[in-house]
């Protein structure tokens, strides 16, 4: 039986994970692309790469990572659907 404090701790952990996810999201979306021109060099079109491919690839990984971590948080505090 889950206690009230389990639920509170679960929510604290959920908030922390969400915050980390959103920080990564913001850094990738806006931080890196803000400095797009600095990514360009004679050897590689970095701005084009980040806007056209890199950001998307990171987002795909980020969402799967978030889903897996959040499941672990749910299980840790006995808040998953199986509990």
């Amino acid at each position, binding site marked *: 039986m889950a206690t009230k404090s389990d639920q509170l701790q679960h929510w604290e952990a959920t908030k922390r994970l*969400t915050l980390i996810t*959103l920080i990564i*999201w913001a850094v990738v979306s806006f931080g890196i692309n803000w400095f797009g021109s600095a990514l360009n060099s004679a050897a590689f079109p970095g701005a084009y790469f980040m806007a*056209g491919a890199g950001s998307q690839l990171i987002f795909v990984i980020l969402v799967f990572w978030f889903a897996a971590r959040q499941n672990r948080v749910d299980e840790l505090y006995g808040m998953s659907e199986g509990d």
Partner: protein
Amino acid sequence: MKLEGGFINNLGKVYGVYTLGFLGFVILMAILEAMGVPNTYIGWMFVAFTVLIYALIGVLSRTMDSNQYYVAGREVPAVYNGMATAADWMSGASFIALAGGVYLGGYPYMAFLVGWTGGYVLVASLIAPYLRKFGCYTVPDFIGTRYGGNLARFCAVVVLVVASFTYVTAQINGTGTVAARALQIPFEVGVWVGLAGILFCSMLGGMRAVTWTQVAQYIVLIIAYLIPVFWMSNKLGYGLIPHLAQFDAVQRVQELQLQLGVGTFLPSPEAQAEAGRLAALKVGINDASDSLYDRWRFFTLAFCMMAGTASLPHVLMRYFTTSSVKAARQSVGWSLFFISLLYLSAPALATFTKLSLLDPNVATSIIGKSVAQVTSIEWIQQWSNVGFLKIVDGNGDGIVQINEFFMRGDIVVLATPEMAGLPYVISGLVAAGGLAAAMSTADGLLLAIANALSHDLYYKIIDPKVDTAKRLMVARILLLIIGGLAAFVAMQKLTGILGAVAWAFCFANSGLFFPLVLGVWWKRANRAGAIAGMVGGFGVGAWYLYQVQTGMTPWLGIDGLRFGMIGMPVSLILMVVFSLMTKAPDEETQKMVESIRVPKGRTYVETH
């Protein structure tokens, strides 16, 4: 074929056979083409065959159960819901116009790509799993129950209808365009043919039917997008995998841009006037600018598209159909994965098309050749005849310069097969893919509107005692009416596809983003705040759009594509201020918010 254990347990088998069947059909068409069957027949067969399959799935999935009708029985596995969401999400604009947008719009346009994918991070982390746990049928259902009262529910219905309707007219326009081209019928007839196909998929089975047709449509659209890209890349010798080879091509295009004067050698006003709405290439492929203004424009566009993604009801409602909260989260990952298969290919296609047209060392190039020579090329003639491209020899030297070649972005996808000299069967495949993309999105949008009107407006507000059979009948009649209305508006050809799509995102984020997010993340948010946030955000955003469209100079470069940058802050501020000025939500509501924050236990709607 006999299915042990029912449909859901045999999805892999069913869609595996379907995919092989579709590939077999493509090969059959290729053989028919080689045997001399005219192109018109091949186009007809592509459209007829795929639309028949979707309609068949729609009829087989008919249901009279409201749980099946509204949320597909909540039994859709994460991977398949990902495919369905990808089809739901990728519209005619994504399929037909995206690569062309990158081609003409260059680096600044790629803010759309960042925005339309990054938005799913917000969907996964802030909204979708919590709405799934809540257990509602529609997005206004969440707003109405979380904040209480018919007024809040009604406001959410209004925002949903405006945003989705703006979007759906563009889709029906898209189905009309593709149907008209493939079937060689007038656009106005094409619109109604497209609508008939769309309604066949959704009328009888609601969300259940739409889910399983969307999976089928995803398979068609992704095959239709990827085959030409890979084929073109290999045939023109750009490399086996275009996604990896594109970066060298970008470097080469940048050299060519300097030589040809892209961005400096602009069309004369007279030439542009003659070309009308067609555009010459004016923006560099990789010109990430250092100026604060340009960076701000990139940021605002990406941000508006992201928040819009996380507020558009036809996307959010797809996550109501998964079997669990955990599956809903994973399903967002799968959605983004399936979307990125197309979105990663669009810039590659744009870049290789650019190289094919600009590079004098390539046989297919046209810039720098004589006007007589270029106008004798077959695909140039074909697409000039339908008004998709035009050569205006502004300086009269008989040579095609970069500022003299005008086109519509759409031809980057539509003309790829002809440009690279691929057989006509590929053009038929591309038409089927474009149709699948536009139909699947239109299905989702029409269903979102009809469900909000039947469930939230009719059942919850007007007549709460009505029985299920009558509710579902009303839902279907509404679907017909709204579809007809959308087709009628689409026939007026009010805006280009992209304008309408970006507006839909900004309407949705101005009105719904903060009421949805704060409904989960801020217990103190209450009815007065939510209503103020929806009315204020949506109202001010719409007012601003109207001002910009009627000639006002945009503030800080926030134009009609980005008006969410005005609507969202207004919505947030009003929502916080009005919530704090009025009293906190009651105990019951606070408990509800706590219950949706944990996956454990039954949904809120089931227990109340």
